[in-house]
């Protein structure tokens, strides 16, 4: 029985030692770094044809399909959730947890062990050493060094011997724990990611202007019920003046519950709408294929008069108030421009980059005439008589592309990020510093030996010790004169 127990213990220790080892950590970091490269070259979750074309560049047309099949079997086509990559990540987190548990007690012991006075020879063998002597009383020197150390936030202890004192002090001893804090934050990030995968979803929703939906989609066939209704009032792309560079993609969204409007917000890229834990992000936009219920929204103002807004169907007539001039929309282009070579008007894009309407005007006793009015160039809407017509929108023919996400783990990711930032800062910029000062003297002179060590950044600590020495020296001189 005893032997058996011992054997079990040995096996346990071996397994523990394996998972706690630095070698495993180094191996995993190398393997994760190398294997991650594959997924940045092979396009992930793409159509097979795309990757076969890519592979043909390296292996030739005839070999590419079979190479593709081997790669697909190895999980390269969706490698970051393949069994082997996830296993490496799992091993990485086990390694992280086990090595932290393995080392933490030792570090804790180091922190908790009280600092002890050192013999003069031991002080002299520390990485940083300084010496000084003063022509004044022993106690003055001791007090001033003690005060200076305290103002530098050191915890000072005192030991006295025959005709001598020793001040031994340290600060920031808990900074030695920072590395464990960083490790913990990585584990928390993994946990947050798992919560998100288990209890959240990532979906999308293409919502035409004026249309409402109470589901989002994870895939074309998989609906996710939202638990409320969302409606898109309008979608709009704004452009920088005189450029085709987009300035803003915006949608006005309305949340409807039990037939009542409960929330309305204009969302933009980087400024989403969240309701009941579900967030709607502006991700995309486009034009509908079928244009059955589009409304032209025109602002019409007679010369010198106020503007009136009209909502018009294709071909529906309107009158410029009080003028007898009537017009009707006879053509529409989502992106109108003049061809540089032929000078003819052409449509140069499928999206509403530069929407324009052709309006046919009729005036009693005059021949009809037609003119194009461009939304981004309002001056095109000024008629010969000074009447103004502006194209505000062609509403109902665009849809807004929404990214829909619910991630109940994201708060943990944010918390872990803050913890990691603090941990990294302490880990690299704050060190455990220890100073021993031996003060020995007869009636005339006092000899001071200073020794110091730090867990990191010796150079900066040496500067700090220099400052402590000069500060204390000044104070001592001040008191002895």
């Amino acid at each position, binding site marked *: 029985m005893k032997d058996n127990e011992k054997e079990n213990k040995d096996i346990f220790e071996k397994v523990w030692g394996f998972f706690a080892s630095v070698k495993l950590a180094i191996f995993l970091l190398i393997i994760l770094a190398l294997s991650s490269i594959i997924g940045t070259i092979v396009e992930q979750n793409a159509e097979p044809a795309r990757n076969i074309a890519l592979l043909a560049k390296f292996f030739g047309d005839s070999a590419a399909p079979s190479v593709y099949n081997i790669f697909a079997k190895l999980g390269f086509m969706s490698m970051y959730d393949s069994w082997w990559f996830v296993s490496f990540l799992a091993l990485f987190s086990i390694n992280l947890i086990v090595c932290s548990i393995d080392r933490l007690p030792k570090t804790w012991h180091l922190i908790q062990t009280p600092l002890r006075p050192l013999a003069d020879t031991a002080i002299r063998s520390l990485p940083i050493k300084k010496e000084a002597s003063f022509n004044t009383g022993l106690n003055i020197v001791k007090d001033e060094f003690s005060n200076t150390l305290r103002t530098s936030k050191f915890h000072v202890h005192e030991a006295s011997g025959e005709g001598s004192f020793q001040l031994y002090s340290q600060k920031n001893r808990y900074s030695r724990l920072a590395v464990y804090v960083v490790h913990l934050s990585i584990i928390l990030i993994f946990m947050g990611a798992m919560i998100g995968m288990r209890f959240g979803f990532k979906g999308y929703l293409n919502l035409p202007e004026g249309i409402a939906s109470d589901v989002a989609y994870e895939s074309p066939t998989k609906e996710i019920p939202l638990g409320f209704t969302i409606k898109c009032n309008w979608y709009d792309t704004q452009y920088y003046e005189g450029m085709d560079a987009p300035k803003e993609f915006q949608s006005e969204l309305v949340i409807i519950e039990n037939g009542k409007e409960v929330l309305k917000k204009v969302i933009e890229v*980087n400024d989403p709408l969240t309701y009941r834990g579900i967030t709607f992000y502006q991700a995309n936009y486009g034009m509908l294929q079928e244009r059955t219920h589009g409304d032209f929204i025109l602002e019409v103002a007679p010369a010198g008069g106020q503007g009136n807004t009209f909502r018009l169907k294709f071909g529906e007539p309107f009158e410029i108030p009080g003028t007898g001039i009537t017009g009707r929309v006879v053509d529409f282009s989502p992106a109108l421009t003049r061809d540089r070579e032929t000078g003819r008007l052409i449509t140069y894009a499928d999206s509403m980059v530069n929407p324009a309407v052709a309006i046919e005007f009729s005036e009693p006793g005059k021949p009809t005439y037609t003119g194009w009015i461009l939304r981004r160039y309002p001056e095109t809407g000024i008629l010969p008589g000074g009447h103004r017509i502006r194209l505000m929108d062609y509403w109902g023919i665009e849809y807004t592309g929404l990214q829909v996400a619910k991630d109940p783990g994201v708060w943990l*990711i944010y918390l872990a990020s803050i913890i990691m930032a603090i941990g990294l800062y302490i880990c690299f910029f704050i060190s455990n510093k220890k100073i021993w000062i031996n003060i020995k003297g007869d009636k005339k002179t006092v000899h001071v030996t200073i020794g110091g060590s730090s867990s990191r950044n010796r150079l900066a600590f040496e500067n700090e010790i220099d400052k402590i020495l000069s500060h204390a020296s000044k104070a001592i001189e001040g008191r002895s004169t």
Partner: protein
Amino acid sequence: MSSSVFFDISAGAYIAAMIIYVIYLVTRNRTVGITATSVTFLGFLSQSAAFIIRWANSYTFWQAEHPASGVLESLLRGAPLRNLYESLIFFVWSIILAHLFIEHKYKNRSLGAFVTPIAALALLFIDVSGTSKELQPLIPALQSNWLLFHVLLSFLGYAAFGISFGAAAAYIIMVSESRTEKTYIFWSVIIGIFLIILIAMGIDFMSLSAAERAQLIQSHFLKTTFRSSSAGIAAASWAAGIALIFVLWYTGLGLKKVLNNLALTPAMLDDIAYKSIAAGFPLFTIGGLIMGAIWANSAWGKYWTWDPKETWSLITWFVYALYLHARFVGGWRGKRVAILAIVGFIAVIFTYLGVNLVLSGLHAYGSE
């Protein structure tokens, strides 16, 4: 004066400084050393002025387009860190800042000969890559408060990694005993590839018309040499490339004598490489990975999607995490960690440029 005048002054100053630092390496004349530092510092001041002027112009531009924006918002949106050109310029600024700091701290000018070439190469890259230098309007995806902090901290991190690369490269020469050592061969191949790509891009640049230059990276990258449609030119390019690596390998060890004559010691270089990584790692983790993830979440609802840019920054992180662990708890020392510092910076370059040149992803706007 416009920002481009100040920028041209600084570019000229850095290239001059590089030459003066090399002269200093050879002559070890104190006056030459002081001149090198002064020229670098002048360049730095001039570039800071260029940066501030560009920021001010871009602030005005944003205000004109968004009159409702407050001062703080316009400052954040106007930060000139929006595209390849602006971020590379900022990289140069950060690496020079880090260099001046180290020179002051270690009281040793020799490192300048290794750091100023990185800055000069980046400037040369900016010029030959033909990236647009115009003030560009901020597209919606970039209109976020995270832009400034994400790019700022990432690039300060990259600059620190750049310094560690310079120090590690110098370290390897100093400790190499013969040309047949694997580390030395590794060194010559890596430095050789850097030079070859830059020279090849320079040839691309010269062979293209002004209009085509804007598309150099996207559609003409190395097309006049290594990727030439003529098999003969491609073969000659490879031969010339290999020859250049050979020359570097053959003569590189001569640098050792120069370095040995200076006050530089391998221990000091090792210390600089480590300290730069110790400063760069938290900056890059917080600014690059964490802020990038938070920004992605607020823009797209996904904090991590394994797109190539994210994955390569994680690979970079793995390499530097490996460096720190191998050195602190794994007992790795000397050449092995120096190689890791070099590999880490290659990953940085690939994260920043390679992904945009070779791969594509959500960050494709960076290549404009």
